């Protein structure tokens, strides 16, 4: 063994190693930033939806940030059956009530199918079910369908922006941030 390393700590080597590790951290930071979603992807995150043409109990699917968005206008009969608690999930506009939610099961992300006669959603993947307000009625999904951030603009909804109604939903735990 070289006599300069026998029984003595290689301080310079450790200093060099430590300093190099710092540089490595810098490089890792740059690499992390390269994985970040691109600005153009983030900028495309807004969609405007017009609720006026929706019909009672007819499911409409739109797209926002690549995900399906369910819109279900509640009929008078449907609203009568909804509890005050569940009503917090709905968006009120011009006297009508709309369920607007991200159409991905909160269990593992499959798209549930809507049965208009039964007024319920069934997720084919693992059998989860939701009612007409998209509140969960049968396991395994842990919660109702998530409500996307929205802002009301006349009869239009701007998804991706937030308004006071959405803030309220977040505050009282009606939905989680998406």
């Amino acid at each position, binding site marked *: *063994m*070289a*006599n*300069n*390393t026998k029984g003595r700590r*290689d301080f310079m*080597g450790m200093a*060099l190693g430590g300093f190099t590790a710092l540089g490595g951290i810098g490089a890792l930071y*740059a*690499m*992390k*930033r*390269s*994985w*970040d979603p*691109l*600005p*153009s992807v983030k900028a495309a995150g807004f969609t405007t939806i017009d609720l006026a043409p929706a019909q009672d109990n007819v499911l409409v699917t739109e797209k926002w940030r690549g995900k399906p968005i369910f819109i279900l206008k509640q009929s008078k009969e449907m609203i009568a059956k909804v509890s005050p608690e569940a009503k917090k999930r709905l968006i009120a506009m011009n006297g009508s009530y709309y369920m607007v939610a991200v159409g991905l099961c909160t269990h593992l992300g499959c798209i549930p199918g809507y049965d208009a006669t039964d007024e319920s959603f069934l997720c084919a993947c693992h059998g989860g079910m939701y009612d007409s307000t998209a509140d969960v009625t049968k396991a395994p999904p842990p919660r109702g369908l998530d409500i996307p951030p929205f802002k009301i603009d006349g009869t239009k909804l701007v998804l991706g922006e937030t308004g006071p109604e959405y803030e309220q939903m977040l505050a009282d735990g009606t939905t989680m941030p998406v």
Partner: protein
Amino acid sequence: MAHFEKANSIGEWMDQRLAVNTLKKVMQTEYWIPKNINFLWAMGMVLAATFGILLISGIFLLMYYQPNVNTAFDSVNYTIMSEVGYGWLWRHVHGVGASLVFLIIYIHMFTGIYYGSYKKGRELIWLSGMGLFVAFSAEAFSGYMLPWGQMSYWAGMVITNLFSGGGLHADFLVEWIRGDYVPGQAFLNRFFMLHVLLVPLAIIGLIVLHFGTLRIPHVNNQDGEEFDYPEAAELYKAGKVKESKVIPFSPVFLSKDVFVMGVYFIFFFYLVFYHFEFAMDPVNFDPADGLKTPAHIYPEWYFLWSYEVLRPFSTNVGLIAFATAQVIFFTLPFLDRSPNVAPASRRGAFKFWFWAMLIDVLVLTFMGKLPPAGIWSTIGLVAALTFFALWIALPIITSREKKL
């Protein structure tokens, strides 16, 4: 099942299963390097580091590059250069790295030629090294296609046209290579495959071979001296580090290696941030246009000497000259008829041969960049003829060399 005792430490546990202690001795602490060397002996490690940098920067470019003739150019010059976080950094590092790897390859090659490190047991080191040069050339060429700029397209057009074999008119071969009549989607996609997968695998395999062929003969030294390695190793292990003619690769040789790499990285990153146009030629910032040839087409600087060997001659002669020039360096261990392993300065006529070759390829490089007109054409022709004359002269002058 071999018998395993209980290990007393993690190190011992690993050694029982992977013989890490033996590996460490063979590859590092008892891999003996002559003391009588200079910083040029670090070029191999510098190349390995540069290859690593090219690989890593390449990984991040690969995340966003699109090998489609309609989107390739913008995926590089818009998405990677302005949208991706630090995308511009990976692109600059990759471009500068590709150029510098050839600078160091040439320095490494000519160091080997100067010190005679290609003979008497070291022939395979030289051959595997030349194989690496060819592989890196293929990697560089295929990589240059990818941005799909004007130079990408027209270099692709010109180089694949070489395969028509001049008078042979093997157009079918050219079309087969391209996958189309002209460089297009098929061409881009297959060169993308070559650049990202096949050639890097070949390079890694050749690097392993190159190291393997180096282990038994050991690296050369500044005097070409042959000495008793076990004897020198015993001296060193006995603590007589000053008297011994060798040092262990790790940590002693490595520490000097790392210092040389530090100096290299200062140069490397200076170029990456402040002086990168030479590595990213403006002509390639025009999107590829199959209906318009740029006023000046030239390959990257490291191919210029080779390009110029082709240009002064008529088609068929030029092709033969070009093909010969590519393989002639492989024959060095066999054309050099002298048994002397020594620096060129002590090898009589070979000294002049060395400097003449170096200056000749430099002149060929300059002429390869200039338009083939007037005096430049003439100088280019003289330099190309000199190149072949030197190779023909090599066996003659070395067989006459006095044995040292």
